[in-house]
């Protein structure tokens, strides 16, 4: 197209021999750029938005964390890593980490297992399937603060409904706010209440994409329901499992609303027995200390911890999912995803081919940012 376009009067010095290749070259370059650059331009709005709303705060937080910075007083002196050492020296920080991990394990593990089971049940031929599917999503619609306030009262130590029910069956009242473990269970139950149904729907979507002939083949081979579930369903939805586990991890380590609203004071109890790290961050920044520098340091420490834990459970989940990869390789190939990764995974030990997996996570899923905005 560009080659055929009529020439304009030459400007400047260049003779025809120079001019033509230059013009053609430029046009070609333009169209080459068009091919190469345009896709990136099309997706750039997301990344521009991300840079403004995500990357900038992240970097700015890092800057704040190396200054003495009061909420009202603003920026103070440069203190280097002092804020980090201060935070690491505070027993409350470590206690908050312990609480966060404990609540995270108590919520994520049962939640993912329950969600898979519920999804498997919903995947059967039920009457009024839509009704049941919407039903499990209902708790997700309830605002987390409302959930926390209601559960805070259900789990009240003296006059709570849960303790009254326990009393009916002769169990001594549990001190849901006072005891460390009991309070973690109570808070985890709020998280589970809210997120199990949501995860179940994600699993259900993945399960419905599992080719039905696999089940037919399994039945012909004599596999029962349970065997089908473990040998067909679970391996088939492993990419989704990884996705759910990772997003649950990120969300689980950022638990805030539930412990914040669990009692009147919102600081995690007198002993800080259920204060999570984000709650601690909030208390440092907006509580009595009003210390933004330290709060920013906590935010960064939490960020690094989430990355480390995310990596660990990525590795673990992948290892589980790829053990005995050879027979599954065929099926994956048939589903048209991970076709290249599968032979490699089949060829060697999972640990030696870390590239195998990211390909699988490329299946369309709700974006991680959709989830757990807290």
């Amino acid at each position, binding site marked *: 197209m560009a080659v055929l376009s009529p020439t304009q009067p030459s400007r400047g010095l260049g003779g025809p021999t120079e001019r033509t290749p230059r013009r053609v070259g430029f046009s070609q370059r333009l169209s080459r750029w068009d091919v190469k650059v345009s896709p990136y331009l099309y997706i750039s709005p997301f990344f521009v938005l991300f840079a403004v709303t995500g990357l900038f705060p992240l970097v700015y937080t890092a800057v704040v964390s190396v200054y003495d910075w009061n909420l009202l007083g603003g920026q103070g002196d440069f203190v280097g890593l002092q804020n980090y050492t201060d935070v690491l020296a505070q027993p409350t920080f470590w206690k908050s980490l312990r609480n966060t991990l404990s609540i995270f394990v108590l919520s994520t593990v049962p939640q993912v297992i329950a969600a898979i089971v519920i999804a498997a049940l919903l995947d059967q031929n039920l009457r009024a399937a839509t009704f049941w599917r919407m039903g499990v999503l209902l708790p997700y619609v309830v605002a987390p603060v409302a959930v926390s306030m209601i559960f805070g009262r259900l789990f009240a130590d003296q*006059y709570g409904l849960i303790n009254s029910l326990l009393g009916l069956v002769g169990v001594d009242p549990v001190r849901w706010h006072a005891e460390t473990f009991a309070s973690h269970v109570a808070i985890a139950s709020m998280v589970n209440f809210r997120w199990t149904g949501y995860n179940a729907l994600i699993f259900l979507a993945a399960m419905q994409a599992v080719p039905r002939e696999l089940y037919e083949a399994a039945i012909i081979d004599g596999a029962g329901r349970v065997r089908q579930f473990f040998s067909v369903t679970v391996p088939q939805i492993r990419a989704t499992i990884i996705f759910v586990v990772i997003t649950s991890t990120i969300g689980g380590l950022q638990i805030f609303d539930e412990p914040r609203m669990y009692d009147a004071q919102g600081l995690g109890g007198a002993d800080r027995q259920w204060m999570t790290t984000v709650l601690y961050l909030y208390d440092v920044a907006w509580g009595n200390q009003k210390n933004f520098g330290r709060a920013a340091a906590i935010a960064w420490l939490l960020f690094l911890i989430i990355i480390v834990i995310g990596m660990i459970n990525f590795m673990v989940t992948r290892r589980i999912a790829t053990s005995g990869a050879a027979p599954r390789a065929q099926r994956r190939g048939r589903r048209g995803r991970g076709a290249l990764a599968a032979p490699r995974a089949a060829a060697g030990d999972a640990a030696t081919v870390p590239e195998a997996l990211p390909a699988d*996570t490329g299946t369309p899923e709700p974006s991680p940012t959709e*989830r757990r905005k807290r």
Partner: protein
Amino acid sequence: MLTHTPRRRAAMALAGTATLALALTACGSGGDGGDGGSSDGGSSGGKIELTVATFNDFGYTDELLAKYTEEHPDVTVKQVKAAKSEDARTNLTTKLAAGGEGLADIEAIEVDWLPELMQYPDLFEDLSDPALDGRWVDWKVQQATTPDGKLIGYGTDIGPSAICYRQDLFEAAGLPTDPAEVAELLGGEDATWDDYFAAGAQFVSKSDAAWYDSAMSISQAMVNQIDNAYEESDGTPKDLATNTEIKGIYDTVIEQSTTNGLSAGLEQWSGDWDAAFQNDGFATMICPAWMTGPIEERSGGVTGWNVADVFPGGGLNWGGSFLTVPASGPNAEAAKELAAWLTDPAQQTTAFENAGTFPSQIEAQSSEQVQSFTNEFFNGAPVGEIFVNRAQAIEGAPFKGANYFAIHTTVQDGIKRVDVEKTDDAASSWDKTLQAFQDLGL
């Protein structure tokens, strides 16, 4: 595909980062609900709109605000109400931190926020005005005055405290029920905490209910009666380990609450506390003027509440608010005038009738409307007269510096561990309190 994976991994890392950053910023921008940020209120044609940001219920009705427009035709007044004082506080501190953008022309504050705000007096207009000398009780003005004499807020209400009690539970336990006799039982004019605890011992020996709701509120009251509880007057924090006054209160309250069983073991504003009103959980309560509202809210169907004109250990002020004018506002002069008008005795008396906010203005306290005010829910108790008497018993305001609440929280946590959560005994909980005090790094 192999060559793409590093990039893809980078993208994943980026996406993960985005999730975290979004979630964290989402947390950070909470509590922004308060006011609509109309401080840029149009000043077209000499007309200006002033916004007043309040919380809970200050008793400023639309009619009251319209009255100001009648007197000042160029000014319209808009009120922005936050449902909870914490929301208003977060809104105020966050916007002050952001340079004052979006603040209302007049921002209401609670007395408890003063220590932190007083460190940055330049953020507020100096409201001192010789014409207003003598409008408020002295200690109310003193609370909002910086060391170099700058007044950052006009007083609205105060919290003179009496004792609220359940006359039905008293009767069942064989104690007198008439307010005057109850006042006498609790020690009359020179009531001491010992009198109050002794009456409690008498009560709990004949009743299933506890004497008071929470050891935390009792200790809060006792600490508030000390002039320099945690800090010297120049703001230097006292060492908690050698603070015998505080340790004395700690020991007394815990002994009375647990060993002698006077406390219901509740934390105020918790779900259990709410429920205890319906379950005859306790018979008496420390009762600042504004507490009559929350008691009534929680006591549907309970008819026995009354108020005794007495308070152990002298007078007690609990809470109270001020109106401030942020320095960044474009209409600071007009706002100052409005704040002075709103805290005028006449307006405050109206506000008291609307919402029960007890006036800090001397003239309003002696007015007929306040003096003759009664509360039907409290069996017709003459609450106006009672709280005026209680206000006169208040001698001054204790010093609360920048570290007051940080230290106070460590002590309150110590009492909570023993009285409410029952996870520690007095000694081990005090050790934890001292540890927490150390961690403050003062």
